[in-house]
C-alpha cells in the first residue's frame, strides 16, 4: 500500500514527498465589538505525508485557533478572513480508501486527485473529510467527551459513521484495540467519561482521533495532563502508527524538549504568524528568529549540569492592534529600522538551496535586502544576554 517513491524525508523516517495539506495565507479573526482579534494572520505551510509538524509558540499566539480553522471547527465569533487550506489525499491513499469505503466517499466534483480547499467543502464533503482524513484532539480534551455516552460508544460512533461496512462486533474489536493503544484497559470501554481521571480522558480522546487512521491528526497539547511515562508511551505508539500508516501529525505543545524529540518539522508562532519554520534538527541546532532563539533557551534542562535559562523580556503584543512591521520588534534585541515598518515574510533562512534545507524565517535579519549577512548564533546569544542585562 505504501508507495515509497519520494522518500526524501528529512529524518528519513516516514515523510514522503506528497504534500497532504497546503495551508496558504490563512487568516482568522475573532470579531468583537471592541475590535477584531487577529488570532491567525497569513499563515502558510505545507504538511507532508508522514510528517510530524510541531507547532510551538507564545501562549495566545493562535495555535489552537489555527488548529480549529484547519478542521473547519471555528465557532463564532471566529471567522476565516482569508486563505485556503488545500488537501490532497494523493493517489495511493485514495486507492486504499476506495477499497475500504466502497466508493462511498467518492468526490462529488469528480476531481479525485485535485487538491480540495477544506474551507470550501460542502457539508456532505466535509462530513466525509472529517475524521477520515483529519482528526483532532482538542486542547480541552478532558472536557470534550460526551458525558452521557460511554467511551466505547463514542469510539464506535465514529466507526459507524465512516465505516458502515464493519459489523458491530468488528467495531467493538477495533475500539478495544484503540484504547489499548493509549494504555486504557478495554474493559474501561463501558465507562462514562466522569468515571475516568483527567489523564485517562485525554487518552480516550487520542484513541478516538486514531480510530480511522486519518491522513492528518491535529493534537493540541494532548498530553498536558499526562505524566511523562504515559506521554512517552502514547507518543511512541503514535510514532509507530505513523511509520505504519504514514499519517501526518500537527502537534501543538509548549514542551519544547518533547517537540525536539518528536517532531520532524517545527513551526514557531508569534502573534498569529509563523515566524520560523524548519526541520527539527535545523531548529534545534540553529534557531534563526530571535524569538525562536529566546524560546529555545527558556526551558530548563533535566539532565546534565544546570544551565542558565534565558527568558524573553517584554510582553506579548495586543492581537487587536498588532504592532506594524514585525510584531516582535518591541521585544527584539536586534530590532533595527525596517522592523518597525516593514512586515517580514517567511523566506529561506540561508541562501544555499539544499534539498535538506527547509528552514524559513520571517526576520529582516535574514533578508539580504535589509541585512547584508545573517547573524551568527553567538550574536543572538550575546544580544539576548545584553538585553537581559539592561
Amino acid at each position, binding site marked *: 500500500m505504501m508507495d515509497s517513491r519520494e522518500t526524501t524525508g528529512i529524518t528519513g523516517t516516514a515523510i514522503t514527498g506528497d504534500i497532504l495539506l497546503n495551508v496558504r495565507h490563512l487568516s482568522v479573526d475573532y*470579531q*468583537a465589538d471592541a475590535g477584531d482579534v487577529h488570532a491567525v494572520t497569513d499563515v502558510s505551510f505545507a504538511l507532508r505525508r508522514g510528517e510530524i509538524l510541531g507547532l510551538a509558540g507564545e501562549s495566545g499566539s493562535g495555535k489552537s485557533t489555527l488548529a480549529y480553522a484547519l478542521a473547519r471547527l471555528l465557532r*463564532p465569533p471566529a471567522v476565516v478572513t*482569508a*486563505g485556503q487550506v488545500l488537501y490532497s489525499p494523493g493517489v495511493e491513499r485514495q486507492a486504499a480508501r476506495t477499497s475500504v469505503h466502497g466508493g462511498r466517499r467518492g468526490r462529488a466534483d469528480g476531481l479525485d486527485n485535485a487538491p480540495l480547499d477544506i474551507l470550501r467543502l460542502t457539508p456532505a464533503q466535509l462530513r466525509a473529510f472529517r475524521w477520515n482524513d483529519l482528526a483532532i484532539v482538542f486542547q480541552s480534551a478532558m472536557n470534550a467527551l460526551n458525558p452521557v455516552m460511554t467511551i466505547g460508544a463514542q469510539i464506535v460512533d465514529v466507526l459507524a459513521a465512516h465505516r458502515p461496512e464493519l459489523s458491530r462486533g468488528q467495531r467493538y474489536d477495533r475500539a478495544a484495540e484503540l484504547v489499548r493503544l493509549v494504555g486504557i484497559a478495554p474493559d474501561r470501554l463501558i465507562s462514562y467519561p466522569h468515571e475516568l481521571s483527567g489523564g485517562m480522558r485525554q487518552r480516550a480522546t487520542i484513541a478516538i482521533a486514531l480510530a480511522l487512521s486519518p491522513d492528518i491528526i491535529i493534537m493540541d497539547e494532548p498530553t498536558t495532563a499526562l505524566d511523562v511515562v504515559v506521554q512517552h508511551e502514547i507518543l511512541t505508539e503514535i510514532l509507530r502508527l505513523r511509520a505504519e500508516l504514514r499519517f501526518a501529525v500537527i502537534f501543538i505543545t509548549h514542551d519544547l524538549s518533547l517537540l525536539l524529540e518528536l517532531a520532524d518539522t517545527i513551526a514557531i508562532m508569534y502573534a498569529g504568524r509563523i515566524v520560523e519554520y524548519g526541520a527539527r534538527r535545523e531548529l534545534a541546532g540553529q534557531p534563526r528568529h530571535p524569538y525562536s532563539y529566546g524560546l*529555545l533557551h527558556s526551558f530548563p534542562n533535566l539532565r546534565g549540569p544546570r544551565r*542558565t535559562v534565558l527568558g524573553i523580556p517584554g510582553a506579548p503584543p495586543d492581537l487587536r492592534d498588532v504592532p506594524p512591521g514585525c510584531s516582535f520588534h518591541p521585544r527584539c534585541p536586534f530590532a533595527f529600522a525596517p522592523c518597525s515598518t516593514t512586515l517580514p515574510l517567511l523566506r529561506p533562512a540561508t541562501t544555499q538551496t539544499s534539498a535538506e534545507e527547509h528552514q524559513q524565517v520571517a526576520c529582516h535579519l535574514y533578508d539580504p535586502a535589509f541585512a547584508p549577512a545573517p547573524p551568527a548564533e553567538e550574536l543572538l546569544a550575546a544580544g*539576548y*544576554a545584553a538585553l537581559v*542585562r539592561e
Partner: protein
Amino acid sequence: MSQVPSVPAPQTSPASLEPRDQLPPALVPDVQAIMRRDSWGATLAALARALWRAMTLNRKVTAGSAIVGFFVLVAIFGPLFARQDPLKFTRDLLQPPSAAHWLGTNQGGQDVFTQLVIGTRSSLGWALLTGLIVMGISITVGLVSGFFGGIVDDALSLVTNVFIVIPGLPLAIIAVQYFSRTTLTVALVVALTSWAWGARVLRAQTFSMRAREFVTAARASGEHTGRLIFAEIFPNELSIVAASFITTTIQVLLGVAGLEFLGFGDTNSISWGLMLNGAYTGSALFQAAWWWFVPPGICIALLGSGLALLNFGIDEIADPRLRVSRRRRVRRGKAAAA
C-alpha cells in the same frame, strides 16, 4: 542542542523587584482609561447601548421588544387618552365598531376600546409583578435546595413537590371564597401554583453546577456561601432564569386571564381577562360580536408572543459565549491580497 549559551549571571538586586502592591507606572493610564470607561454615566450609556444591542439582536427580539414596548407604553400612558368611562353602562348595546366606538361596545354598552386600553395596565402589570414573585421564589428555593443538598434539599424538594402537585384551579376557587375576590388573590394563587416548576429546574441545574470546578475555585478563594450561590452559580443559570422568567410571565398572564375568564376575577376592575369573561358569559362570539371577544384575546396573545420572542435573545445576552458581534464577515484585505 549541544552548546549551552553561557551568559554571565546578571547581578540584579532584590531591591529592584517590583514592590508587591504597587501599580507599575506604565499601567496608570490604563487605570485612568478604565475608570473613565466605568464612570456612572458611561456605565449607564453602556447599559443603554447594551439594551439597544440586545433589542436589535435579531428579528425576533426586535419584534418582541416592539410589541412589549408598545404595550408598556399603552399601560403607562393609555389611560390618559381614554375618551370614555370604561365601565359606564349605556344603551348602545353590542354596537359594532364605529367612529364613536372604535371597537364597538359590549352587552353593557361599554366601550370595548377604552376597556382594552385601560385593561392593559392591569393585565401587563400583574403579569410582570407575579412573574417576578414567582421567579423570586423559584430562584431562592431552587438554588438553595440544589446547592446545599442533604436535609435542606429534602425539605425544600418536599415543599416543591407538594406545590407541583397541588392543582391551581381548586386552590383558586377556595382562595376567592376565603379571601376577597381581588386580582391580588388571583395573582397570589397563580404565583403559588407556578413557582415550583422553575424551582425544580433550577435545583437540578444548581446541583450539577455546584460540583463545577469554578465553584470550588471560588470557594477556595474565600467566597462565602451566599455569594457562591448567587454570584457564581446564579449567573450561569441566567439564561434559564431569564427564559423561565419570560415563560413564567406568559404563564402568569395566561393564568390570571384564565382565572378571570372562569369568573374568579375582580369585576370592579378592568383587565383583558375580565373582558374575556364578559365576552364569554355574554356569548359574544355566538352573537357575532367579534369586536368584543377577539380584541382582548388577541392582545393577550400578542403580548405573550412579544414576551416569548424576547426569549430568543436571552441566550446571547446571558451567555457570554454566545455573544456574537453583529458585523458581517469581511475578508481581511491585506491577507487576501497576499
